[in-house]
Structures are given as structure tokens and as C-alpha cells.
């Protein structure tokens, strides 16, 4: 019960930032985003879109509960497609999160790995 209330409160807080983002997008123009036509069925894409509006708030709140900085949680959510958001929202508790601190290495490794992959560190030079 308490957990759920906590989640709601955080959802409300995060809505402030997300809602303003939504307005900014809508105000940009009356053009339709590519996601609407990219699905095999447009109907499915539209339904997904509606779900994703809900999902983006839910996922952001869930990430915050999991210790992610609220601003960054919103940023992370904003970088996902509708389909990814919907899946994350449904499965966030069950989804694998690689390289746990206890199990193998941890944060330093994940950070290094992304730095390498995005070319900040030359991955082949280190071999």
C-alpha cells in the first residue's frame, strides 16, 4: 500500500516535467511522427502510442523508485521508442540488468563499456 502511494506521489512530481515536454512537442507542428506509419499495422502503432504516454510516466516513476535521479529517469525514458517503453513498463521488474555489483563487476565496467562502444575509448587499441 505504502509503496503504491509513494509511486503515485512520484508520478505526480514527474508529470510536471513530462507534461511540459509533451506541450513542446505538440507545439512544434501538426506533423505526424514516423512511429505512426512504421508499424506493420497503423492501428497497432496508434494504440501503442496511447499506451506509451501512460508508460512513459510509469517507467519514469519506477526508475526513480529504483534509485535513478528523477531528471535522468525522464531523460532515459525520452530516448526510447514507444514499443520499447511499453515493453519496459510491462517487464521492468523481470528484465535482466547485467553486471550486478555483487555478482560480477559493476558500474565501472558498464561505464567503460559504453565509453568504448561510443568511441570515446578506442576499443581495439587496448587489446
Amino acid at each position, binding site marked *: 500500500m505504502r509503496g503504491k502511494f509513494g509511486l503515485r506521489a512520484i508520478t505526480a512530481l514527474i508529470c510536471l516535467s513530462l507534461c511540459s515536454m509533451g506541450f513542446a512537442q505538440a507545439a512544434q507542428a501538426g506533423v505526424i511522427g514516423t512511429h505512426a*506509419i512504421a508499424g506493420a499495422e*497503423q492501428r497497432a502503432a496508434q494504440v501503442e502510442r496511447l499506451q506509451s504516454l501512460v508508460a512513459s510516466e510509469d517507467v519514469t516513476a519506477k526508475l526513480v523508485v529504483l534509485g535513478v535521479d528523477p531528471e535522468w529517469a525522464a531523460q532515459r525514458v525520452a530516448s526510447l521508442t514507444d514499443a520499447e517503453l511499453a515493453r519496459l513498463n510491462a517487464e521492468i521488474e523481470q528484465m535482466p540488468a547485467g553486471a550486478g555489483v555483487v555478482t560480477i563487476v559493476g558500474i565501472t565496467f558498464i*561505464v567503460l563499456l559504453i565509453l568504448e562502444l561510443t568511441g*570515446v575509448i578506442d576499443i581495439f587499441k587496448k587489446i
Partner: protein
Amino acid sequence: MLGPAGSRVTPDVLASEVYTPGLKGSLQPDLLGAIRRRGLLAYELPPTLEALSAELAAGHPILVLQNLGPVSRPVWHYAVVIGADASTETITLRSGREARLQMPTRKFMRSWDKADRWAVVVLRPDEVPVDPRRERLHRAVLGLEAAGRPVAASQAWSAVINIWPDDSVALFGLGNARYSLGDPVGARAAWARYVKLNPGDPSGINNLAVVLGDLGCRNLALQLARETLDKLTPGDDAYPQVLDTVSTLESQPAGRDPGHCIPVGTANQDQSGRP
């Protein structure tokens, strides 16, 4: 392979981007997001060793998820595949603190199987995978659009069009990327080509009408949008947007369209969607 935004990142910032304390790890979508925010393409590979080998041969390192524990008690682990040798049946990984971990291919395959064979190759936005699969590539580029990286998205959609000149999703996406970059002429060219290929799709006509309106072609735009609206019912997905476009255009001052306002199908367009 230096990313446009990637050069100034600090480990602290990156940790905030990808690390989830409550899970003591990183979620797959958060890794995809971190790659996209640097303007790079995160392409999820088909789940085969052949696909991995082909990308490695092209010099592209691959991010993989492994499960090093039993199925019942998973130990999730990210690693980067940097080599695959078919003759010795070994896979080389950057894994944890190991700069060069050799693993028998069979053992690697077991750990990769238990993680649903998740693999991502990181590419520059103007690059494409060695053996591109259309829907996978669409998903990768849609990710750039979602992350708000229109410059990269525009390059990536153009690369898709280079492979499949009549790719409707890419033409539509190229229009959106150019439009958000303040290139209405380029957006019009891409959308006009999309509409030519998909004359019955109200989404394409809506976007074309919006940009034609921006370019001063109010009458032509209004004609297109009204014709489309007439064919729709309020229950259709595109209805609210097209209705909005019609009313926006109606509120613009009427007058004669300039000479460059030519209907779709009569304009000269090349393969890139440029007029």
C-alpha cells in the same frame, strides 16, 4: 568512430544515464538510449553467430548480454565481442576487467542463448549493418528520432534509402528529420515522394500539407488536406491531425500560391527525395 556528443562525456554522467541502483545493473533499453543520445545507431543484430561474425569482420565491436548462471538463477553480464575465430572455435570478449577473454564458442553460445541472444552493434548514423534487415534497421533509426537526434536520424534514413530507394518508412522519417531541422524544402521532397508511393495514406498527405503551408502554398495544401479529410471518419487514427491541419491552413491569409507550388506527381524528384 568518435560520436559527435561522445567526446565530452564523464564517467559520472554516464553512470547516471545507464546505472539503476535498485537493480544493481543496467537495463538493456537504457544502454540503447545512451548510445542514441550520442547520435550513434544502436542496431539489434539477428540472433545468429553468423551475424556477429559478419559485423566483426567489418570491424564493428558488438555489445552482448550473457547469462553466466543457470536459467533458474541468472547472473546477467554485459560484454563486448571483439573477435570470433571459426578455426579454433573461440570467441574473444572484453569482459569485466579482462581486456581479452578467450572463451570456447560453445560456452559463449550457451551463455548467450540464456540471454535470448541479445546483441547490439554500434554504428555511425551514415553506416549500415553488413547484412541489413529492413525492420531492424527501421527500429534502430526510430530510436534516434525518439532520442531527439534529427541530424543523425536524417543521415540514417538517407542510408536506408540508399539501400531501398522506395522505402516508405525511411522517406516519411527523412521528412520528419528534415522538418525538425528547419529544412522545409527537403522535408517536402521526401514527403512528396512518400505520398506518390502511398497515395491513400492520410498521414503522408497531412505532413505534406503542413510543410506546403509553411512554404506559402496555402491553397494547394488546403486542397490536399480537405480532400483527405473528406475520405476520413472521426474514428480514423489520422482524423484529429488532418482536421487540425485543415483549420490551421484555413486561418492563414488567402491569396494566390507562388509558382513553386506544384501538385504531387508533377515535380521532379530524384532518389534521395531532393527536388
